């Protein structure tokens, strides 16, 4: 066994090595956190749709989104859809973006008129709404300081808060549920519904059922839940998430640059040692392996630290800003691994070239 040079050099000036790890961790944390925030935003954008229990969502022809969209269908369409083979259940809802006011505060919400009061979404506290009552998403309730039993206003109408749901708020808006008849009265649209949430029988696929509905019911567009959510994310993404993507790209570039500079400076600070070792006839290949081992270990430690920190952040951030959640996914971690690999390569490139060019005769120069 040889003298463990890479380990000795890393442990020798612990402060400098730790600073290197911290620098790379900070750079990777930026990449990981932005990715997780982006994923969290995307998740929350369609949280209501994803958790609605519908296999197929039916809207007015040409409509396959909710955000900034209006859809109007005759109420009888729900009964017609329910009678189709393969349909287990067809639930009509009314939907309108609304400003909910409570005290001096107010917030935007998807106001959903739903006879089931938001089922199958679980009620986090209180109970589902009855006539004249409303269920608020928890972050909206907190913002409006509207606990169960208090009152809020929507479209000039007072509603008594009967309970709260959780996990549906995004950075753009929140969600609230009232009885469908209450909302229809408010909007003056009795006999009209916005969307029909359809559950399929077990023997039929969502795609097939959507096609069957469109073929059987005139004037409607039927989308699978996945397709509807994807359209929703796309339309919102066109407006907002491009900014986040740009931030991620900038974060990536900064992260790689910082990690590269850290690794370069760590290797450069040891260049005299490399010259001595080269004068002792350490081969270029071995000197490169030594430099890469140190950079690799620094990046690996930085990556693990960044991963631990982003996990910590994922636990802490929603407590401070409930509408921003970090979704850490296996795919994102794998991406971060690729990023870390790219960082390691980029970071190693400069010092490797520098080490390869070290002139052993330089040890004689003072």
């Amino acid at each position, binding site marked *: *066994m040889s*003298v463990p*040079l890479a380990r000795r050099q890393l*442990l020798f000036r612990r402060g400098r090595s730790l600073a290197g790890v911290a620098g790379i961790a900070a750079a990777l944390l930026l990449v990981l956190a932005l990715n997780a925030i982006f994923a969290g935003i995307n998740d929350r954008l369609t949280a209501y749709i994803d958790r609605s229990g519908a296999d197929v969502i039916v809207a007015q022809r040409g409509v396959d989104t909710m955000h900034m969209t209006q859809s109007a269908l005759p109420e009888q369409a729900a009964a017609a859809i329910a009678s189709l083979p393969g349909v287990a259940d067809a639930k009509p809802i009314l939907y309108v973006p609304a400003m909910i006011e409570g005290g001096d505060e107010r917030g935007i919400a998807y106001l959903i008129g739903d006879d089931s009061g938001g089922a199958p979404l679980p009620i986090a506290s209180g109970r589902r709404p009855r006539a004249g009552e409303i269920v608020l998403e928890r972050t909206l309730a907190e913002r409006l300081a509207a606990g169960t039993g208090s009152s809020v206003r929507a479209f000039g109408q007072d509603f008594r808060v009967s309970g709260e749901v959780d996990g549906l708020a995004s950075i753009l808006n929140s969600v609230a549920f009232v009885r469908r008849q209450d909302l229809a009265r408010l909007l003056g649209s009795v006999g009209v519904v916005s969307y029909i949430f359809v559950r399929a029988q077990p023997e039929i696929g969502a795609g097939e059922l959507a096609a069957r509905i469109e073929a059987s019911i005139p004037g409607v567009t039927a989308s699978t839940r996945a397709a509807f959510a994807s359209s929703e994310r796309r339309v919102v993404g066109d407006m907002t998430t491009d900014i986040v993507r740009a931030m991620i790209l900038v974060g990536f570039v900064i992260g790689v640059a910082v990690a590269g500079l850290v690794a370069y400076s760590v290797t450069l600070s040891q260049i*005299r040692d490399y010259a*001595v*070792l080269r004068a002792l*006839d350490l081969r270029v290949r071995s000197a490169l392996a030594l430099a890469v081992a140190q950079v690799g270990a620094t990046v690996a430690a930085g990556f693990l630290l960044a991963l631990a920190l982003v996990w910590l952040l994922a636990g802490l951030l929603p407590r401070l800003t409930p509408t921003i959640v970090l979704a850490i996914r296996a795919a994102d971690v794998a991406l971060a691994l690729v990023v870390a690999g790219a960082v390691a390569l980029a970071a190693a490139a400069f010092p490797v070239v520098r080490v390869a060019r070290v002139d052993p005769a330089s*040890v*004689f120069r003072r």
Partner: protein
Amino acid sequence: MESTLVRIRDLAKAFGEGETRVEAVRGLDLELERGEIVLVMGPSGSGKTTFLSMLGGLLRVSAGEIWIDGTDIAALGERELPPFRVRTFGFIFQDFNLVAALSARENVEVALNIAGERGRPARERARSLLESMGLAGRLGFPVEKLSGGEKQRVAIARAIANRPVLILADEPTASLDSHHGAETMRLLRELAKEEGATVVIVSHDERLREVADRVLWLEDGRFKTLQALVRDPVCGMLIDPAEAPASIEQDGAQLYFCSRGCRDEFLAP
């Protein structure tokens, strides 16, 4: 085995091109015997370090030949040179050039590792060398915590670890006080005699004349004079015959003394 270890013929090194061309070393001829200690002195910028770097195979020559133990290192390729260097040369530097992250023992061991000797044999060789240099209690010490003299002894141990035939020392006493400088000189002398290694020292330090068998003066890239020093038969001090205060002829040989006192002591019944 031939007694001459090194033969240098018409050695030259130039840096730059055209108007900026500088001839650092030119027309050097030299032969070094096995076990000989040669001190190369000269003013700053005279080409001493360039000469040492070329002799150690760390710098390519512009012209000439450097034959070491029958091999012309100026003609060796990039692939052949490193293995030749590792088994032929030992380097001792002014700034010690120890790897700060390693202990005293590891600094010696790493030179053995690079030469292909690993594991317990390398550890034992490093330990044994350092113990023989009075550093038994410093084996695991970080080199930063060693005194200048101790660092230089570690550097010398590292230089001889691979049993080189030629040791090249660049200002080995420049960073040392007189006590540690003398200790380093004694070690270099012992090395040359006990290990049979040839030692080439580049230095400004006049004290090193005491251990040198020959002193070469390098100036403007050439050896200007070649002085053979002789040893005072009484006190053992090396002296320049041309400047010896006393000398006598005995049995056809000329003897030189560092002082009249030594001559009188020699002549006393």
